[in-house]
């Protein structure tokens, strides 16, 4: 039991272990680059990257196996702030962040930037309102906090329901992304790819629970950030945008605005299913402020209520290190989030600007249709060019693309070697797998700890609890894979819904649990049920077109409806019912100071 018996030594040597690992990964990258020069094929490179990285995650997962409750649920509370920051960043940045974010900025323009601001600004809320206090509480799961703070199984059960709905919505999207990448790289059908992806996820999480997931997530963060930054920096240098483009692409933004005006942003003469043309300007915020900030607010409050993120801060050794690790988390997340718009802008400029060799708009149709990357992505239905006005020239509204492929196709557009594409595939897989791990564990832990142990069978012994936890993990994973293989929603729609569900049901019960002593169980239950039910009802009505959206709040922003309902229900019902017992109020006082032991004992 390598990591378990020598636990202290492993944690002491983290710097060395992960530095070696990073060097090893870079060496592998260089090795593949050399092999490509010697004539190794694209498919073999892709497979090499996937197998190499998954093998490493599997080894870490195996070495982290455990039979202790504390290690399984909260990684033994011994994860230093810096590493918890990396693990949280990987946990956080999903397939959607890695694959779809830049594409969203490319196609969605200003309102879409709500995701960029929302998915970073939410950490300010996590840090100041929740993380340190939940760490002090000493809970294993988020419903554990709700259940103990408010008392009673009803509140706990409501929290479990919201958690499961939000996280399950999210995890299907991640397993979908894992399957897509595995299928494309390995050349197997999507349905097979989904199950292979799930297998990889189980290897990381089954044996070691939170401990296994933590140490694989650190490894996955390193892979995904390298895979995101290398292509951008490489491309920027090849195309003369400067060594690091992040601070110098301002002129590109202005140039794109000129070009968009010149070409005109018209819808396609004839739509093609599954792909779209560019119709939203890169930077035209006039009159769309509400659209942008309503999205940002949902994503920020959702960030502060998603259990798979909050539970990462239960794994640090102290309250102070929990706070510090929020700082590290956002620092590591920031690296990717401030790169995505740069990537989107440079990719767009490369396609649009006739002064650049890579441009395609305004060139002869035949020339463009014969480009290698156009043919490659057209053949899998992710891209299309069609000379719909018959003038022999490719117009802006004749170039169709699936937003998801901007990141994946960029290395090819810029003419970079295939080894970069292999690296990007490994990064996307790491992003999707690490998030899926965290989400599956959040669901399985809530069901095994809160539903099974706290409500159904409080007398269960340790080994039984851990067996139940693992069985539930397998079932939830399999259920998610089955739903993912049906391919019901696009990656991003499902992800936004998860945030809306979480903030509608959990945001105020969590925050007021710390910040308002008067909040009681009846209020919390009313807040969870009210926000969640009204939010879900609004989603159902608007998504199915049964009702016109209010104030332009569409189905990806339904948290804007759910949250105020939750707040009002919670405050009104709390005030109409007796205040919480002295015991609970003292507990809240205790949570507010960092010193002293946790509220809940270890192994509770």
């Amino acid at each position, binding site marked *: 039991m390598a990591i378990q018996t020598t636990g202290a030594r492993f944690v002491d040597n983290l710097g060395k272990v992960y530095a070696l690992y990073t060097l090893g990964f870079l060496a592998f990258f260089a090795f593949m680059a050399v092999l490509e020069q010697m004539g190794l094929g694209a498919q073999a490179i892709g497979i090499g990257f996937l197998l190499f990285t998954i093998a490493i995650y599997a080894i870490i997962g195996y070495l982290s196996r455990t039979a202790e409750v504390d290690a399984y649920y909260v990684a033994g509370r011994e994860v230093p702030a810096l590493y918890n920051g990396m693990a949280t960043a990987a946990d956080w940045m999903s397939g959607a962040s890695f694959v779809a974010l830049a594409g969203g*900025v490319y196609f969605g323009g*200003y309102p879409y*930037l*709500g995701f*960029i*601001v*929302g998915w*970073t*600004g939410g*950490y*300010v*809320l996590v*840090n*100041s*309102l929740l993380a*340190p206090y939940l760490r002090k509480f000493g809970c294993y799961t988020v419903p554990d906090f709700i259940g103990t703070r408010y008392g009673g199984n009803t509140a706990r059960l409501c929290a479990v329901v919201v958690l499961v709905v939000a996280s399950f919505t999210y995890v299907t999207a991640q397993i979908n992304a894992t399957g897509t990448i595995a299928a494309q790289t390995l050349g197997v059908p999507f349905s097979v790819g989904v199950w292979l992806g799930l297998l990889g996820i189980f290897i990381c999480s089954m044996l070691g629970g939170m401990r296994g997931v933590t140490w694989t997530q650190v490894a996955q963060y390193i892979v995904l950030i390298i895979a995101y930054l290398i292509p951008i920096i490489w491309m920027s240098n090849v195309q003369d945008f400067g060594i690091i483009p*992040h*601070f*110098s*692409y*301002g*002129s590109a*933004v*202005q140039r794109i605005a000129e070009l968009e005006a010149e070409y005109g942003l018209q819808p396609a003469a004839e739509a093609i299913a599954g792909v779209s043309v560019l119709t939203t300007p890169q*930077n035209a*915020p*006039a*009159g769309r*402020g*509400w659209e*942008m*900030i309503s999205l*940002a*607010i949902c994503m*920020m409050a959702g960030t502060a209520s998603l259990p798979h993120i909050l539970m990462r801060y239960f794994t640090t050794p*102290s*309250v*102070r290190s929990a*706070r*510090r690790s*929020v*700082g590290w988390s*956002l*620092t590591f997340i*920031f690296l990717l*989030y*401030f790169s995505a*718009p*740069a990537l989107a802008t440079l990719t767009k400029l490369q396609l649009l600007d006739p002064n650049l060799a890579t441009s395609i708009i305004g060139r002869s149709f035949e020339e463009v249709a014969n480009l290698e990357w156009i043919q490659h992505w057209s053949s899998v239905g992710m891209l299309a060019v069609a000379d719909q006005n018959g003038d022999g020239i490719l117009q802006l509204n004749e170039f169709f693309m699936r937003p998801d492929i901007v990141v994946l196709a960029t290395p090819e557009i810029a003419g970079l070697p295939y080894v970069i594409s292999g690296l990007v595939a490994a990064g996307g897989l790491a992003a999707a797998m690490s998030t899926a791990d965290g989400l599956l564990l959040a669901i399985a832990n809530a069901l095994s700890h809160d539903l099974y142990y706290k409500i159904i069978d409080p007398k269960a012994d340790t080994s039984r609890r851990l067996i139940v936890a693992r069985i539930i993990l397998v079932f939830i994973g399999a259920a998610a894979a089955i739903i993912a293989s049906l391919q019901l929603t696009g990656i991003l729609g499902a992800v936004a819904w998860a945030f809306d569900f979480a903030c509608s049901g959990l945001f105020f019960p969590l925050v007021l649990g710390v910040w308002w002593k008067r909040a009681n169980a009846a209020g919390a239950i009313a807040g969870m049920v009210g926000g969640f039910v009204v939010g879900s009802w609004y989603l159902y009505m608007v998504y199915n077109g049964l009702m016109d959206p209010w104030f332009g709040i569409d189905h990806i922003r339904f948290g804007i409806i759910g949250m105020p309902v939750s707040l009002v229900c919670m405050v009104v019902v709390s005030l109409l019912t007796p205040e919480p017992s002295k015991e609970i109020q003292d507990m809240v*006082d205790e949570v*507010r*100071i*960092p*010193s*002293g032991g946790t509220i809940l004992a270890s192994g509770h």
Partner: protein
Amino acid sequence: MSSTEAGATAEARERHWTKTSRLNTIVMILWVLFAIVIPFFAAPLNSFTFLGFPFGYYMCVQGSLIAFVALIWIQNWRQDQIDDEYGLGD
């Protein structure tokens, strides 16, 4: 713990929480500014240029993000000071 110590602690705790809440209020106000107010007014801010960017656009893709990172680190540095001042750090 003797009763006098516990009494002193209770008062210290109260002041600790007052300071903590005040710090939090400041952070929340700055958060609203960078996360909601500035992104909302991106259009008028775009008439300024910053580092070659239209300023409103810059804030949405970079400026506010940098502010969030700084805000968290600064708040934590100050909160550590407050905790230590009252001997309530862990």
